[in-house]
């Protein structure tokens, strides 16, 4: 089974991955002082699944209330991996959800995905 759930902590969001649905969701707040262990864990698990599954499509749902500046690099790296999957032939969709009137989070989603041409970005509010 490639499915996994990483429970939320005070400073990291909950991560859920369902291989059958080819869908990952990340929900909550993300502001660890050192974000790399959190992101490296997700990246490693997803990369292993991708290499074996070569899925035709993949959806990543981000529903975040707050991200600190050091975590933005982690999100960037994660999205860069998804973009590579897109390049490789997988249809990649990123759903970036933010709170109403949270311009900062809305703009972060756009900035993060901006030069990743293989990602279809959809934004929504929650």
């Amino acid at each position, binding site marked *: 089974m490639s499915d996994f759930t990483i429970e939320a902590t*005070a*400073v990291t969001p909950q991560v859920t991955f369902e291989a059958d649905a080819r869908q990952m969701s990340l929900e909550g707040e993300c*502001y*660890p*002082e050192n974000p790399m262990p959190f992101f490296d864990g997700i990246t490693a698990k997803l990369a292993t699944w991708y290499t074996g599954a070569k899925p035709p499509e993949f959806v990543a749902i981000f529903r975040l209330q*707050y991200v*600190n*500046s*050091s975590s*933005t*690099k982690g999100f*960037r790296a994660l999205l860069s991996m998804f973009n590579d999957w897109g390049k490789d032939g997988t249809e990649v969709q990123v759903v970036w959800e933010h*709170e109403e*009137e*949270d311009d*900062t989070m809305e*703009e972060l989603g756009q*900035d*993060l995905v*901006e*030069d990743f041409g293989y990602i279809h970005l959809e934004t929504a509010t929650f």
Partner: protein
Amino acid sequence: MDIGSFATFTQYAQKSQVFYYYHGEFSTPIVEAAAHSLKARMADEGTAAQKSRKLFSTFIEMAQNVMHYGVQAQTAGGQDVDAKLGAIAVGKANDTQFWIACANLVAYGSIPRISAKLREVQTLSLEEIKRQYKEQLRNDEHSQNDAVSKGAGLGFLTLARDSSEPLEFHFLSDPTRTDNAAYFFIKAVI
């Protein structure tokens, strides 16, 4: 602190409408607890969501800045104290605005670099801040050299983006220190 000094301290705090003040070790659990207490306070007072978010973000960026870049304090004997020390305070600037200020030790030699970065950020418009932020986000090389970041890092840009006034900063050297460290102060208005 004698009781007279404490009385003076509380009067200053009251005058500046300080409602949160912490001085001591900056560690992950302490910063997390402080951030949650600040959030509860904002919710209690019915602070507008956008202002709450900016205040919370500024608090985290300032506190984590101390943890990342602050130099370790030393005892009088020159031994490293295994903790990053600093102070952070939040208060009301007026009926609609908050101020938030942070103090920590930095290496004396890093003062020109930090000053240059902050002076540059002070001159930027909100649009320019956002543009630089976007550029910095793409600059993968930067993350490799983050310990001595070049250009204004994402942290300072995030603070500047959320502050309604240019960031203020100040350095104070202490001739009695033997560890080649100086005090660094930074302030934002939300």
